């Protein structure tokens, strides 16, 4: 049976196997994506990011329930780090979402980063497309616990929620570089802990500095996710942001930028594959290396010559 047909027909097993094919770069992965692509573009993609232990999974669980109560179907991609030493991973986000497992309107998939450093895995975007084609209305993408610079989520999501918690030392130092710039909505989780007000004040101060530059001022919502407190208000802010980006054309712009990035990445990776096949695997690279080492030629000239040849 054709796996794409089964997926489009609603088979969760086919969806699951499709994501595996994508992740493992099976031979049929690109033909699957080619077919699925035409069924994508309907889902609203929500990114959830923040430092380790901030409560991203718990918040994803609660937000997913809120959207289920609104009658929406939900897909969740939860990313956890792959060990750079063993290649193994403990994917433990699901443990916060066990209550959703038997809801047929929810599909949760855990992914290891498998060498990617931006907070997602290289195949996350394609897995999102599979969930989109499957017909999910809302797709959550939960990143690994991030520090300051893992901001790939902005490329994958329509709306990004940055989850922060009080008591992480100098709060502003921890967030000022990368993360602060990517939040469309901020959630201060564990807001019943000491320091939540201080964090909110400092965040407000930072965000107000941008106030005149942008017409969307990222709002901050205090949440106690494991109690469900503040979740409904957070959903309202997410919906408000969605309405804003839809109305102003920013959603279309974000998706346009994403398509461009993906197209270029795909093109670059295809060129890389071509180079591997024709220059590395054929052993031709050794001749080039010998020429360089003997000073008969230099890397710049060789690359120039090879490119001329490839592009003919």
């Amino acid at each position, binding site marked *: 049976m054709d796996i794409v047909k089964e997926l489009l027909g609603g088979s*969760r*097993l086919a969806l*699951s*196997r499709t*994501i*595996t094919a994508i*992740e*493992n*770069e099976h*031979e049929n992965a690109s033909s699957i994506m080619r077919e699925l692509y035409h069924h994508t573009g309907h889902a609203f993609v929500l990114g959830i990011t923040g430092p380790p232990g901030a409560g991203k999974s718990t918040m994803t669980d609660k937000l997913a329930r809120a959207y289920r109560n609104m009658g929406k179907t939900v897909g969740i991609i939860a990313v956890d780090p*792959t*060990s750079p030493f*063993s*290649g*193994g*991973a*403990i*994917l*433990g986000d*699901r*443990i916060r979402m*066990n209550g959703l*497992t*038997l809801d047929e309107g929810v*599909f*949760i*998939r*855990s992914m*290891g980063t*498998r060498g990617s450093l931006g907070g997602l895995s290289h195949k996350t975007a394609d897995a999102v497309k599979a969930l989109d084609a499957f017909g999910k209305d809302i797709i959550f993408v939960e990143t690994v616990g991030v520090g300051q610079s893992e901001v790939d989520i902005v490329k994958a999501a329509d709306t990004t929620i940055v989850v922060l918690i009080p008591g992480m030392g100098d709060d502003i130092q921890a967030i000022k570089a990368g993360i602060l710039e990517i939040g469309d909505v901020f959630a201060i989780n564990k807001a019943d802990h000491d320091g939540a007000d201080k964090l909110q004040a400092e965040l407000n101060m930072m965000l107000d500095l941008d106030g005149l530059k942008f017409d969307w001022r990222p709002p901050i919502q205090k949440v106690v996710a494991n109690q469900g407190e503040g979740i409904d208000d957070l959903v309202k802010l997410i919906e408000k942001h969605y309405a804003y980006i839809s109305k102003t054309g920013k959603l279309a712009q974000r998706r346009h930028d994403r398509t461009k990035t993906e197209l270029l990445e795909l093109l670059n990776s295809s060129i890389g594959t071509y180079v591997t096949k024709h220059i590395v695997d054929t052993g031709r690279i050794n001749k080039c290396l010998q020429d360089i080492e003997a000073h008969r030629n230099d890397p710049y000239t060789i690359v120039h010559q090879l490119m001329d040849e490839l592009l003919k």
Partner: protein
Amino acid sequence: MMEKRIRVLVAKPGLDGHDRGAKVVARALRDAGFEVIYTGLRQTPEQIAEAALQEDVNVIAMSILSGAHMHLFPRVVELVREKGMKDVLVVGGGVIPESDIPALKKAGIAEVFTPGTKTSDIVEFIKAHVK
């Protein structure tokens, strides 16, 4: 082309709260290069089977210390087969009397690891039998 990675669901069915062993095994499997989806305590067979489907795992590893293994382990096998996952390897561990093991194997549990098992034996078993 990326090499295939073995994905293992580690779960604790039943009502006992002793997850130390499951965590030790999860960690050993991680160090062996497997992707371990850890779902934690008090999972019903229905939850375990559905999580296995969504995660497309190659292996389900369950630990139980409450004595309900004769009911819960075979039920998981039954449910994953019903869902069309013909190849998934199901293994169990925990405080399980020797006399129960033949019946569990007959019910589709590929192997049962009792207290004292080396984690490396579990890793080797999975590597040798995973499809």
